[in-house]
């Protein structure tokens, strides 16, 4: 069936509504499986569920496979929705637990309280789900599910408007690029629109490379059509009829889902020639990135699309004026594009009714690291980091102390406890030497050494530097050398100043954003954790117990009750002591693996 008009779209929606209603008369079990769901055993859960239902002849129960809705910490998880609409979420599942749920809940009609996940916690209640709303709610392999939730209506409205009015609407919404830099989307479009050319391009940047960031993967796996629709809206606005999605080859499931989504949209005539009966043609092609972090930078991404090495080039000319194959090209992040159908459908005023003064709307973050509840969260801009880490995230896992939250990956910085009350928006974060970034939020506890963290990011950037320009190519190894020296106890106090000098030089003189921001994690750790650098340099101590040359483990004789657990965990047999007597660590044998430190339940193993 081809959809030739807005009326056709509504007619199809009506038809799907009927089917959905019939489905809602039955008990539905949804198994949530994104990439990390699979890794956590969702497949085993699904298989067990199907087998149990089959063996017990429970034919009326519908099993649906949806993508992850973001509460990754309870994986693998399922939900049971009964005909009355009551829904129960079960988490931390195993095949055995599924059998029990089938017996007690699906057959017996009683909720298994033990495995139920409380959705009244802040992790669920404090979120403002907009672009992630349909994640887990729809089957990503079915375009009908998206259309049921008003999918492609934003595009339908767009095609009835003038191009300039569409751009004006996006400008009025205040939408800023979700990839990290926060450039106003409408302004970018305007550049491309105003540039005369016989060919223009719309590119989706799905080269999500920041370690710790996976919201783009989840968005593509959960609701691919929102991105396709967003691209078509952008394409119409700037006058492009060709789009590319540059997606990482490391995301095979997202690629499969995208391919299927494109072919379904084409079948319905929502992509391709004469979309919705208008004269607008728009086609989308998928391009697989081959693993180069720098290709997240827009000019490098374009070079890569042109089948070359992903070397960035100087700007201007900006891609919106001279981009892919020299033609005007708009490059938007996945999250930016997913917001477009909502703005076009529900209006700019609805969209910007939440957010902070300078930054409107919501932002999706991936909350990871040493935090109790890991997962994907969508929160209004302007919410404080404190609320995110301690309310939504549930604080630090395992009763340890909070140290910092790392934002923006290798281009970002670390926020210490004293700044946790600042609101999340582009400007506030910049004020404390940090960036919003793509949305990676990695929480660090007391066991993280900030010198080591700085070195980790520098090594990442050095690995990924394209090597074209000198400040980045040479600056990074120089900084790593100094940090290595400091972590081995051979640092001098003037090293801190040298690090700052090189960092500032790189910021000012590197060709692209990778080099310009590569030193940011180091600068932010110096700024907020200078004492820790000084401890490494002056006292020759690593307070967190990470830099192996600068600490040793000792057993506190008062606290040790001789349970012997540490000795059992020691791979080198370096710990001796009689049961119920204080133990002792032989420093010559100790390899500082930390097993004893983590094993001790009485905090009797100390870092000295």
């Amino acid at each position: 069936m081809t959809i030739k008009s807005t009326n056709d779209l509504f007619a199809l929606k009506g038809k799907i509504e009927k089917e959905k209603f019939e489905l809602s008369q039955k008990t539905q079990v949804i198994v949530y499986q994104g990439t990390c769901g699979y890794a956590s055993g969702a497949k085993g859960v699904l298989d067990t569920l199907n087998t149990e239902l089959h063996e017990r002849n429970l034919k009326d129960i519908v099993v649906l496979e949806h993508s992850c809705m973001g509460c990754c910490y309870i994986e693998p998880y399922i939900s049971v929705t009964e005909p009355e609409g009551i829904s129960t979420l079960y988490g931390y599942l195993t095949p055995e637990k599924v059998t029990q749920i089938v017996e007690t809940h699906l057959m017996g009609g009683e909720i298994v309280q033990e495995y139920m996940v409380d959705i009244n916690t802040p992790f669920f209640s404090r979120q403002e789900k907009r672009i992630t709303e349909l994640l887990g709610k729809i089957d990503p392999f079915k375009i009908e599910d998206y259309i049921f939730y008003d999918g492609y209506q934003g595009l339908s409205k767009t095609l009835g408007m003038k191009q300039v009015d569409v751009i004006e609407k996006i400008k009025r919404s205040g939408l800023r690029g979700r990839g990290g830099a926060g450039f106003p989307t409408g302004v970018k479009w305007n550049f491309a629109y105003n540039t005369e050319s016989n060919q223009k391009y719309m590119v989706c940047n799905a080269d999500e490379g920041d370690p710790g960031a996976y919201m783009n993967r989840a968005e593509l796996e959960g609701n691919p059509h929102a991105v396709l629709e967003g691209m078509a809206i952008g394409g119409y606005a700037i006058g492009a009829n060709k789009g590319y999605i540059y997606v990482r080859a490391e995301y095979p499931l997202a690629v499969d889902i995208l391919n299927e989504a494109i072919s379904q949209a084409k079948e319905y005539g929502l992509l391709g020639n004469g979309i919705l009966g208008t004269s607008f043609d728009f086609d989308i092609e998928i391009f697989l990135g081959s693993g180069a972090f720098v290709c997240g930078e827009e000019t490098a991404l374009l070079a890569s699309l042109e089948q070359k090495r992903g070397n960035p080039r100087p700007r201007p000319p900006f891609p919106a004026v001279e981009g892919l194959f020299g033609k005007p090209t708009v490059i938007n992040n996945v999250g930016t594009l997913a917001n477009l159908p909502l703005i076009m459908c529900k209006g700019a005023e609805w969209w910007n009714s939440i957010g902070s003064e300078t930054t409107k709307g919501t932002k999706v973050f991936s909350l990871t690291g040493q935090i109790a509840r890991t997962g994907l969260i969508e929160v209004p801009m302007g919410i404080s980091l404190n609320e995110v880490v301690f309310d939504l995230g549930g604080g630090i896992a395992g009763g340890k102390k909070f140290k910092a939250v790392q934002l923006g990956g290798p281009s970002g910085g670390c926020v210490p406890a004293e700044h946790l009350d600042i609101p999340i928006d582009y400007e506030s974060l910049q004020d404390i030497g940090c960036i919003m970034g793509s949305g990676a939020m990695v929480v660090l506890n007391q066991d993280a050494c900030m010198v080591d963290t700085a070195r980790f990011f520098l090594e990442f950037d050095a690995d990924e530097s394209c090597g074209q320009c000198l400040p980045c190519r040479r600056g990074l190894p120089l900084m790593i050398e100094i940090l290595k020296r400091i972590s081995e106890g051979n640092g001098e106090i003037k090293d801190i100043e040298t690090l700052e000098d090189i960092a500032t030089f790189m910021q000012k003189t590197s060709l692209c954003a990778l080099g310009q921001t590569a030193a940011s994690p180091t600068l932010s750790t110096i700024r907020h954790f200078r004492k820790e650098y000084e401890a490494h340099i002056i006292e020759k101590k690593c307070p967190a117990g990470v830099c192996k040359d600068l600490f040793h483990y000792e057993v506190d004789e008062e606290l040790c009750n001789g349970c012997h657990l540490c000795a059992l965990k020691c791979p080198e047999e370096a710990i001796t002591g009689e049961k119920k007597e204080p133990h002792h660590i032989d420093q010559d044998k100790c390899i500082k693996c930390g097993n004893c430190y983590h094993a001790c339940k009485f905090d009797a193993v100390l870092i000295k």
Partner: protein
Amino acid sequence: MQQVAAPLEDERAKTLEIIENNNHDPKRLVKILQEIQAELGYVPEIAQRLTAKKTNTPASQIYGILSFYNFFRLFPPGRHSVNVCLGTACYVKGAENILKEISSRYELEPGQTTNDRRFSLDFVRCVGCCAIGPVMTVNGKVYGKMKPEEVKDVLGEYK
């Protein structure tokens, strides 16, 4: 690293077929090379030379692409490809200890293949499974919340 090539003629035929399917199009260079690697497990020199010739592209440009992107391999991989994620979230949860355990157990550094070609080891910069770190993948299958002592059992399954 050990190099054991598949039969040369086989590599040649498969490469030519892939180039043919892509219409010798230099605009599909990266796709051609990705497909060659998917077929052969790596991009051997013969495939590089053939691609250069048939798409009318300088061989240096082909090599430039292959050496630039982490994804491409220039040497034959082991039967099982093991990747340890060293992204931030995995790193703070102890991913380095997983890598060290594999390295010492199989006498294998990242980028290398064991002498019996059973495993090749590498690290990656994030597979997007940050919520269940530390993560490693074997032949693309993701293993989450890894502990060093579990390495033996997981890899023992792969002969």
